[in-house]
Every structure is written in C-alpha cells, then in structure tokens.
C-alpha cells in the first residue's frame, strides 16, 4: 500500500522531534545557547510538519483527524507540542524541551505502532458534532496532563541535581507550570471527556453512562486529578509531591489511552 502524504509528514516530524531532543540534551549538558536555539528551531520545524501532517490527514480522510487511535495520538501529541511552545514563549525556558520532547516522542512512537489507514467513512455513531467536541477537548486535556508530567519530571530532576541547575527553571516556576497545565487540563477533561461524552452517549446509545471500560478509565483519571487538585488547594500536595503525582496521573491517562487496544467495549472502534 502506498504511503500517503500525511504518513510521510508524520515520519518527518517524528525524526525532527527526535533530533530536537538530541540537541536539547546536548544543550542541557553543554549549556551553549546556540545549541538550545538550534534545538528550539528544530522543534518548531517538527511542529510545523506535524501540523501539516494533521492537515493532510484531515484532507485525505475528509474528516478531522480524531476517529482512530493513531489520529487521536497525533492530535494529542500536537497539543503537547503546542503547549510546550506556548510555555517556552511565556517563560523563556528552553531547557524544558529536554523533558517535553522525549515525552512527545513516546506518544509518537505509540502512534507509529498503530494502524495508519485513513478511512473516509466515519461509522454512523461518529456522525455528530459531539464527536468533535468530545475528542478535541479530551486530546487537548491529555496533552496538558502530559505537559504537567514533563514539568514534574524536571522538578524532580532539579531537586536531585540542585547544584548544577542554573539553567533549570526555579521550583516555583516549575510548580506554576505544573499547576497551570493541570488547571487547563482538568476543566477541559471534565467538560470534554465526561460531560460532552455523556451527552453524546445519551444521544447515540441512549444512556449517559454505561460503565464501558473507556468510560470507567476516564472516571478514574478524573477522580485522580480531582483528588490531586483538592490536595493541592488544601496545601498538601505541593512541590515534590505535586510533581510526582502529575507523573502518576499521566501514567493513568496513558493506561486509559492504551486500554482501547485491549479493553474492548463501546469505544473499541477507535482502535482501528
């Protein structure tokens, strides 16, 4: 089967993200600004290709690229890359790239293992504007959770290597990045994955909630982040604990994401 344009663009962006990661790593070790700028430019280039790949996929499949797990992974990783670019522009910390880019690569590696065939025909249940609301918000929310986890890793690494952390953002700034990412992800996840998902399920399947494995997974993710934010507001899970828990949350989100491959249920069609 001929490789389509979107797949070519995907692979190009993947290799460029990988190159950016290598340069970010060298930047972290050598602390040469030029290398950091090169890594950033590579990352921006990879993001442009990633965006073009998604656009091509949209044109080829004639629907927004959310209907398969491959497309969902691409969209989610795109949201992560966009969030990273925003954070880099806002806080001027190129060093975060050394953590965000590998996380992004992990998601893209998972995407690369999934079937990539573009289907022009959406199954009847997906013919709804709720589909776009539900999946877009969930993908962006999970992207934000990934950014929080990435910043959490930097936070923990910084604690261990306090002496050599001049390039690293301060603890307060990292905590703010984690906190902001969670506070972007949580409402989007609540509205997109749970509220919009339930309303759509009622319209398509006749019930708001069916305890489908994917639904349960979303509930587990939501409860975890609810717990995390309550503890954070209470002043309990701050700093190191917040960082660690944001990584745990990411783990649960990935488990739910991968669950589609083997859990079955009403969301199983997204595995194709």
């Amino acid at each position, binding site marked *: 089967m001929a490789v389509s344009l979107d797949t070519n663009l995907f692979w190009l962006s993947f290799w460029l993200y990988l190159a950016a990661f290598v340069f970010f790593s060298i930047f972290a070790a050598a602390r040469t600004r030029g290398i950091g700028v090169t890594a950033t430019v590579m990352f921006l280039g990879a993001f442009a290709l990633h965006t073009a790949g998604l656009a091509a996929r949209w044109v080829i499949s004639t629907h927004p690229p959310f209907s398969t797990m491959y497309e969902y992974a691409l969209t989610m990783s795109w949201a992560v890359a966009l969030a990273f670019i925003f954070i880099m522009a806002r806080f001027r910390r190129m060093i975060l790239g050394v953590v965000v880019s590998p996380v992004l690569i992990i998601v893209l590696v998972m995407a690369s293992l999934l079937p990539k065939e573009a*289907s*022009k*025909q959406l*199954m*009847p*249940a997906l*013919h*709804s504007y*709720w589909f776009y609301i539900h999946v877009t918000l969930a993908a962006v929310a999970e992207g934000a959770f990934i950014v929080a986890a990435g910043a959490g890793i930097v936070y923990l690494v910084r604690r261990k290597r306090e002496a050599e952390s001049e390039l690293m953002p*301060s603890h*307060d*700034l990292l*905590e*703010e990045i984690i*906190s*902001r990412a969670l*506070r*972007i992800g*949580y*409402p989007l996840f*609540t*509205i997109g994955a749970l*509220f919009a998902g*339930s*309303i759509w399920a*009622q*319209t*398509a*399947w*006749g*019930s*708001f*909630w069916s*305890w489908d*494995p994917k639904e*349960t*997974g979303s*509930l*587990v993710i939501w*409860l*975890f982040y*609810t*717990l995390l934010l*309550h*503890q954070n*507001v*209470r*002043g*309990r899970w701050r700093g190191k604990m917040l960082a660690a828990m944001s990584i745990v949350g990411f783990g649960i989100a990935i488990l739910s994401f991968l669950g589609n491959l083997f*859990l079955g249920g009403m969301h199983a069609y997204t595995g194709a």
Partner: protein
Amino acid sequence: MAEQPKRSGEHFISQRLAVIVIAILFGASAAGWLATELVPANFIEKKGMYLERWGAAGSRLVELLRLYDPFHSFWYRAVLALFFVVFLLCLLTRWRQLILKSLRLEPPRGADELRKNKLAMEYTWHSTFGGERGARGPAIRYGDLLGKSQTPDPDAVAKSFAKIAAYLRGKGYRAVHREADGAIYFAAGTGRWRSPGNFLFHLGILAITLGGVVGSFTGWKDFVYVREGQTVPLPPDSVFSLRVDDFEIMTTKEMEVKEYVSTVSILDRAGARVAGGSVQVNRPMKFGGRRLYQSQYSVDETSFKYARVDYALRGRIRRGSIDLTPGADVRITGTSIVVTPGRFFPDFRMGSEGPYSASGFPSNPCLEVAVKNGDETERGYLFLYHPDFSKKFLTPIDLVLVHCEPIFYTGLEVSSNPASPILFLGFLLGTIGLALMYLSNPRTIKGVVDRETLVIAGTECRWKASFEKELGEIGEGVRRALASSKE
C-alpha cells in the same frame, strides 16, 4: 491555602474527609476497572468452568463481591452513596463559604499581620529602612525622596491611598478599605468569580450524581427487533404499537456502512397512526416520554425477502429471469425444470461443519437452490458477488443470482430517563462553574498606609511565581503613583 481551624461539628464534613472519600471512590473505581478486565462478564453463565479454574474460594469471592459486574455491586454502591452523602453535607454546610470566599474582601487587622507574609513589601517615609523586612521586598525609601522621616502632609495618608486604589483599579483589582488610628487598611482583589464558579461546579457534580441515582431507579431501557412492515408493542406497555415502515442501510462503494435509518409509525390501540418519523444513530425520536434510538440492525440469517435469478438453458436459445421467494417453487417456462430456493447466507463462509453466515451483514450473499428436472434433483449455491463460484448444474441450465434482498431487522432501543433534566442541569452548572473557576485567576493584595509607612503584601494567589512578578510590577507602579503625589 492552609485550612482554617475547624469548629467541632465541622470535622465530619471537613475538606480532609472530602479528600478521603474522593480517594476511596478513586480506589473503588480503579478496582472495578481492573475487575472488569480480569473477571469475564459471563462469569455467572459459565460458573462451572470458572469454579474449576479458580477454585471454590476464588469463585465464591468473585460472586460475593460481584466482580463480574463490579459497578453494580453492593460495595461500589456503598462507596457512591458515601460520596453522595458527604458531598451533599459538604455543600449544605459550606455553601456560603464556597460562594463568598473570593467575593469577600477583608482589610487586614494590622501591618504586622502583613509583614509576616512572604510576599510583603514595605515602603517607608523614613530615610533609613533597616531590619529584616528591608532586605526582603523592593523597599522604596521615600525618606530619600522627601528627606524626612514622616510625611509632612497631614492628608498624605488619604491621598496616598487614593493614588494606590486608582492604580490597583487600573490593574483590575477591586479595593475595599477601613480607616482606624489615622491609618488606612485596605484589601484589593481580582479574579473574584472563582468561588461562585467553584460552588456552581460542585453543585453541578452533585446534580449529576443525583441524576445518576434518580435515573438508575426510575429509568428503563428495552430493545425491539422489528422487520420492515412488522408491528410490535411499544415498550414499556402495550398502549401503543410500533410499526417499521421502512429500514434502509446506506453504504459506500466499499460496502462500509454510512448510515442506517428506520422510518417508523406509532399506532394507538385502534391501529391509527398517532406519530411517526425517522430514527437514526445520533437522531433519536421522542414520543410520550420515551426516546427511540437506532441501536443496531441484523439480517435474517435463514431467509430472504426476494431474489432474482437469471437463467440460460444450455442447448437452447432461451434466457430469462425468475423471481424467487422463500418456499415457493418456480418452473422455468417451457421446461420441466423447477427451481426451489433453500437456505440463505448473508455472509457465506464454508466451515468444517458446512456453510454458515459469518456475520449479519450481507457481505457475501449466497442462496442455496434446488434444481429439479424430472426425478433428479441437484442442490447448489449461487453467489451474488462471485458468480464464477456458483454451482454448475448437470441439468442443462445455468443460474446466476443477480439480486437478493435480505430481510433486515432494525434494532431499536426504547428508553426513558426521567432524570435527564437533572443531568443536563448538572452539566450546565458544572461547565459554567469550571469556566468561572479557571478563567478567573484570584489574587488578593492587602496593605496598610499610615503617616510613616506603606506595607503591601500579596496574600492570595494561585501561581506564586507569576504573582511575585506581578507584585513587583505593582510595587513599582505604586512607587511611581506615590512619587507623582509628591510633586
């Protein structure tokens, strides 16, 4: 923010308890999630097999804890009930605090209270400003500007506060103040919609939980499988009947299903049509408090509606078509050959035990026919999409299946959930609440102005690093505003 000391009665509905209950619900949901993957849903039907596999104790445990359907088990319902009760009590007792927390601004009681704050800045009229506080915030020594330890202007306090309040208003802060002992104590806040948003969100979640509970007791769901033209009683009672006037499956060229639509009529006891319309996925039909959903479809895997077969008589210039219906023999005109339709396979496959239909979708329709010529009868299969594989009969006739219309059954779900309005209200409140909560960034600044000093402290913020930066800018802005009052 650190928790305030609680009154004795508040322990039962404390934030701590709320967190514990959320943690329990999280743990129970995660356990249920895992259980649904480990324990098959058909455990009860195949109990004997699992008894052998897991032993008596294991099987008993699964049965006792209802691990094959954990989310309808007593333990999960108990956790849900606990969550609901604590949540309800929490909202009932804390609603005022939840709503007013960020709306209420209270000026500080004294400057010392502010000086303890990490994000405090002190501006003094004194020419020298030493001590611990001086090393901390960006102190602006008005003494340097004025050359005096105390402002000589008796109205300076009021004027200074007016300047500060105007400056903070320009930054989006709302300020309140009180005067005491020649000093002005003020508080300025922004992002004040956070608390009402927080309350609305909690109210929304409560409504959704309540809707779930009400729905689980009052809602019902039923399925009807109806073939085109058939009339069946409409659940939940037999007051009305449902007739499927038409059922259509639309496919792409690649035979992928695009859409499937049932056109239905609702009939009263006398058989008169009282309502009707089309039902398709994502477009349910409402009737008398019920909703009809296009749930699925199936094909009768034994029979068919109608088939057309082209024939050609070998050795004779005779061609034609015959229409076959189930169970009816058709004689080929001018011959003694009789064609009788047999079994129908919508998705033909040949298995070790003979032919079968692999699915209910007509992907590979096949019709079994019997060809009788005198005393001899032959049987064979005719394939719609693969005519080359059709049976070559010894009888001098070639048959080609050119059309075959299966009997489709439309699967309609009929359900009612009286709690739907509560759930929709919950979604609405929750969404508004979340928008208010997360679009507002609450920050509070408190300060004291007297004839000797101005103390400003950031007392509430969500993001310390950004707030510190903002507070620095505000300090600089205040310095400029006050410096302009000197001129």
